[in-house]
C-alpha cells in the first residue's frame, strides 16, 4: 500500500462516514420516516422536494464514488480538504487532480440535498402539526430533528459556496485560497494573493455545526428510547430542549478551535477557546438530565435501551477529552495526533452510530411489523460496546505519546514502542467490525422471519405508536389524522392502558407535571 493510497482510503472513509452516514442516517433517515408521524401529519409539506433531497444525495454519493475511477484516484486531502494543495490541481500531488473536483462537486450536491431536507423538516415541525400538538407536546426526537434541521440549513448554506470557490480555484485559475509565490515541486504557481485560512474558516464554520448535526438527532433518539424504557419522563423536558438549542447556537461560535495551530491570530484562539468551554455546559446539562432521570428508575433492559446507555457512555468518555483539546496551549501538543482521532470517533462517530442502533432496534417493529431478535441484539451491543472502547481508548494514549495521525507507516524511532498497541487496536477493530455482521444478520432475518410485532410493543405514548396499522399506511394515519390531548411521555400515571397514557388518548388522567 502506497502512502497515497492509504490517504485516499482514509479520506474516502472520513467523507463517506461524516457526510453520507452520520449526517444522513440519524437525521434524514429516521427523521423522514418518523417526524411527520410524530407531529401527526400525513406527509411532509413538500414531498417533491423531499424526494429530490434523497436523489440529490444519492447523486452526490455516486459522484464521490466515481472519483475511484479517475486516472489518479480519489482525493487524499482528508475530509477537510485544506487549501492550498487541494486548490492547485494535479500539480499538488497524486490524487489532488480530478479527485478534488469530484469531491467538492459531490459535497456541493450533497449540500443541496441537505438544504432541501432541512427546509422540509423545519416546515413540517412548524406547520404540519396536528390539532392539539403544540410545540411543547412534541417528543424529544422531533425536537432534536427540528433543531438539527435549523443547524443544517445554515451550515450547509455556507459550505456550498466554499466548495464552489474551491472548484473555481481548481478549474478556472482563480486565487481564492492559493497564496502568492507558492512553489510546488520547483514550480512557481500562477496564483496570487489567496488566503489558505479563508478555506479553513468557510469549512469549519460548517464543520463544527456538522458534528452537532451528527450528534443531536442521536440525543433526541436516545432520550426518546430511554424515557419509554424508564417509564418516566426526563427530569426536565424543557431544559433538555433548551440545552439542545443552546448547543446549536453555540456550535457556530466555537469553530475556530479546529484552527488553533493554523497560524491564526493567538487572540482569536483565546476567543474561540472560551465558547468551546462554554459549550460543555449545555452538553453537561443534557448528560446530567439523562443520568439524573436514570437514577432510581426501573429501566427495562433491552437492546434499544442498552444502546442508548452506550450512547451516553461514549458521549461522556469522548467528551471528557474535549476539555483538553479546548485549551489552545494543550492543543499545540495534541493537535493532529491520535488523541484527536480518539476524541471525535467516540464523541461523535461511535456515539452517533449507537444512536442509530438504538433507533433501529426501537423503531424496527414499527417500520417492518416484526420484532428484532433480542438475544442477537444484546450480543451485538456488548461486542460493539467493549470493542469500541478497546479501539478508541488506546488512541488517547497513542496521541499523548506523540503518535501523529494520517501516517501510513510508523517509521520514526519513537513510534516503534507503540506498534504493539496498534496491533491490539487492529485486532479489536477487526473483531468489532465482524460483530456488526450479527446486526446485519439480525436485520435481514428479523425483517422476514421475526416475531410479528404489535402496534405498540414498547408501550410508548407518542404518535408513531398509534398508527392504524403496523407498518403505518402510506399516509401515516389512514383517513383520520390523530388529535393530541396530552404532553408526550405521560408515564407513571394510572390509566386504563396501564402505567401510561398515549398522546391521542382522550382519557382524562391525573398527569405527571413535567416541570415539577
Amino acid at each position, binding site marked *: 500500500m502506497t502512502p497515497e493510497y492509504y490517504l485516499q482510503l482514509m479520506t474516502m472513509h472520513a467523507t463517506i462516514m461524516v457526510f453520507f452516514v452520520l449526517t444522513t442516517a440519524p437525521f434524514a433517515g429516521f427523521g423522514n420516516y418518523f417526524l411527520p408521524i410524530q407531529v401527526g401529519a400525513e406527509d411532509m*409539506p413538500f414531498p417533491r422536494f423531499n424526494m429530490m433531497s434523497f436523489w440529490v444525495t444519492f447523486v452526490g454519493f455516486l459522484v464521490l464514488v466515481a472519483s475511484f475511477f479517475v486516472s489518479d484516484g480519489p482525493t487524499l486531502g482528508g475530509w477537510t480538504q485544506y487549501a492550498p494543495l487541494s486548490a492547485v490541481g494535479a500539480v499538488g500531488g497524486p490524487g489532488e487532480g480530478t479527485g478534488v473536483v469530484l469531491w467538492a462537486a459531490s459535497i456541493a450536491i450533497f449540500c443541496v440535498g441537505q438544504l432541501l431536507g*432541512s427546509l422540509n423538516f*423545519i416546515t413540517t415541525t412548524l406547520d404540519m402539526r396536528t390539532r392539539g400538538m403544540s410545540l411543547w407536546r412534541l417528543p424529544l426526537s422531533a425536537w432534536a430533528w427540528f433543531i438539527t434541521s435549523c443547524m443544517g*440549513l445554515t451550515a450547509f*448554506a455556507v459550505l456550498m459556496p466554499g466548495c*464552489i470557490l474551491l472548484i473555481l480555484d481548481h478549474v478556472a485559475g482563480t486565487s*481564492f485560497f492559493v497564496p502568492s509565490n507558492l512553489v510546488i515541486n520547483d514550480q512557481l504557481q500562477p496564483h496570487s494573493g489567496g488566503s489558505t485560512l479563508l478555506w479553513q*474558516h468557510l469549512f469549519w464554520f460548517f464543520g463544527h455545526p456538522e458534528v452537532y448535526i451528527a450528534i443531536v438527532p442521536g440525543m433526541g433518539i436516545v432520550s426518546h428510547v430511554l424515557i419509554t424504557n424508564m417509564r418516566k419522563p426526563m427530569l426536565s423536558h424543557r431544559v433538555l430542549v433548551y440545552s439542545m438549542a443552546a448547543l446549536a447556537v453555540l456550535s457556530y461560535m466555537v469553530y475556530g478551535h479546529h484552527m488553533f495551530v493554523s497560524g491564526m491570530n493567538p487572540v482569536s484562539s483565546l476567543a474561540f477557546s472560551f465558547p468551546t468551554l462554554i459549550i460543555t455546559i449545555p452538553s453537561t446539562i443534557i448528560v446530567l438530565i439523562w443520568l439524573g432521570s436514570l437514577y432510581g428508575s426501573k429501566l427495562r433492559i433491552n437492546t434499544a435501551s442498552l444502546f442508548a446507555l452506550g450512547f451516553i457512555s461514549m458521549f461522556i468518555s469522548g467528551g471528557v477529552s474535549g476539555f483538553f483539546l479546548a485549551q489552545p496551549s494543550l492543543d499545540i501538543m495534541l493537535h493532529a495526533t491520535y488523541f484527536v482521532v480518539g476524541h471525535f470517533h467516540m464523541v461523535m462517530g461511535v456515539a452517533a452510530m449507537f444512536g442509530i442502533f438504538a433507533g433501529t432496534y426501537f423503531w424496527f417493529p414499527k417500520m417492518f411489523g416484526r420484532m428484532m431478535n433480542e438475544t442477537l441484539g444484546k450480543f451485538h451491543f456488548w461486542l460493539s460496546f467493549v470493542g469500541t472502547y478497546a479501539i478508541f481508548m488506546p488512541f488517547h494514549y497513542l496521541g499523548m505519546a506523540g503518535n501523529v495521525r494520517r501516517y501510513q507507516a510508523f517509521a520514526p524511532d519513537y513510534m516503534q514502542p507503540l506498534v504493539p498497541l496498534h496491533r491490539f487496536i487492529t485486532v479489536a477493530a477487526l473483531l468489532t467490525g465482524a460483530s456488526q455482521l450479527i446486526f446485519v444478520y439480525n436485520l435481514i432475518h428479523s425483517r422476514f422471519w421475526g416475531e410479528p410485532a404489535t402496534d405498540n410493543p414498547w408501550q410508548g405514548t407518542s404518535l408513531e405508536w398509534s398508527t392504524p396499522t403496523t407498518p403505518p399506511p402510506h399516509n401515516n394515519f389512514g383517513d383520520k*389524522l390523530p388529535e393530541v390531548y396530552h404532553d408526550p411521555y405521560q408515564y407513571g400515571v394510572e390509566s386504563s392502558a396501564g402505567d401510561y397514557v398515549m398522546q391521542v388518548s382522550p382519557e382524562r388522567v391525573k398527569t405527571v407535571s413535567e416541570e415539577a
Partner: protein
Amino acid sequence: MATTVHEPPKIEQQIERQRDRSRPVSDSGNGGWRNLVPPDGELRLVREYAPPPASTGIWVALAAIGMSFAALTSALVVRKGGSLDWQHFTLPSILYLNTLVLLVSSVTLEISRRRVATFMGGLRSGVASPARWLYITLSLGLLFVAGQYLAWRQLSAQGLYLATNPSSSFFYVFTAAHALHVLGGLGGLVRVIRKLNTFVLRRSTLDATSRYWHFMDVLWIYLLLLLWAKL
C-alpha cells in the same frame, strides 16, 4: 343600540367543500393547507385560514440563500483584507440600468398580485386576465439577466475575466450566483402563470413566488452596494 347581527364568515363550509375535492383529510388543525383559491371564492376567507406551509417554507429557503451570500461576503472581506494583489475597477455602468429593471419588475409583480386577487375573487368577468402583468414581470426578469450578461461582456472587453484578479473573480461569482437565483425565480413565475391559466393557483404559491422575487431585488441592491464599495 344597533341590533344588526353579522353573519360569521362561513369558513367551515368553505373548507368542507375543498376537502371533498381532494381526499378526506379529517378535522386536523392544519388540514387547510390545501387552500386552492377557488375561481369564485372569497380570498379573505382563504387568507384567514391556517397559514399554508409555502409561506413558512419560503422564509426558510430565503434564510438559507441569505446565509450563502453572507458566507460569500465574508469570503470577500477576508480575501480583500489580507491581500496585496487586489485591483480596483469601476462597475460596468449597465448594472445601474439593470437595477432599475429589476426594481420595476418588483412593482409590476405587485400590480399583478393585486390583479390576481380581484380576478380570483369572483370579479373575473369584468377584469382582463392578470397574466399580462405577470408576463411583463417575466420579461423584465429576463431583461435583467440579459443585462447582467452584457455587464460580463463589458468587463471581458476590458480584459477582466474570472481569473484575472480577485476583485473580478468575486464580481463574477456574486453576479452569477445572483443571476442563477433570479432564473430560479423566473421558473417560479412561469409556474404561477401556468397555474393561473388553469385556475389552480394557490394564493400561497403566488405569495411565496413574489416574496422570493422581492428578496432577489433586495439582495441585488445589497450586492450592488457591496461590490460598489469593495471592488
